[in-house]
């Protein structure tokens, strides 16, 4: 399974750190927050 292979690779600390910094953290920081603020600046 592809997912199993990927998760096996992610036990590598350097690779995992890269995933967090380049994918997960930006997604968390980029989420919309204000609901009564529908107009995009």
């Amino acid at each position, binding site marked *: 399974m592809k*997912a199993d292979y990927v*998760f096996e690779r*992610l*036990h590598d*600390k350097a690779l*995992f750190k890269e995933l*967090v910094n380049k994918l*997960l*953290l930006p*997604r*968390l*920081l980029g*989420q*919309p*927050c*204000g*609901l*009564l*603020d529908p*107009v995009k*600046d």
Partner: protein
Amino acid sequence: MSLRQRQHQKATPQFEQAIEEGYAPAEVWNDLGYSYLLDGDGPAAQRTLDRTLELDPGLQAGYHNRAMVDLLRVQKHPGQVPGPDCPTSARRSNSAPARPSCNRDAATLYALAGQQETALDYLRQAVEHGSTQGK
């Protein structure tokens, strides 16, 4: 609305007043919590966002803002994991719909807390329960 103009210091009392006068849907609580977050008042943001999620356990923005509170705490206190009350930990999945983005956010928080294995567990749940990209 003041938040759009990034004038959250003006928005905060407006939201507080709206709630005090009885206009208190979850969306207003959420935006008040967001406003506290922008002010850097983590405890007030946490209380307000917890109330948001009590009122509407399905409110996506509330979960993300609550995750931001936990993110700030993890960044301020490295190694501290999200608490058992953390909505993003997916431990509330009994009372709230399971959502991939919550598991993804939890994975991020645990990763930042240095708990790689736990983070991977949550990431796997995010993948298994849906896409890691959307909501």
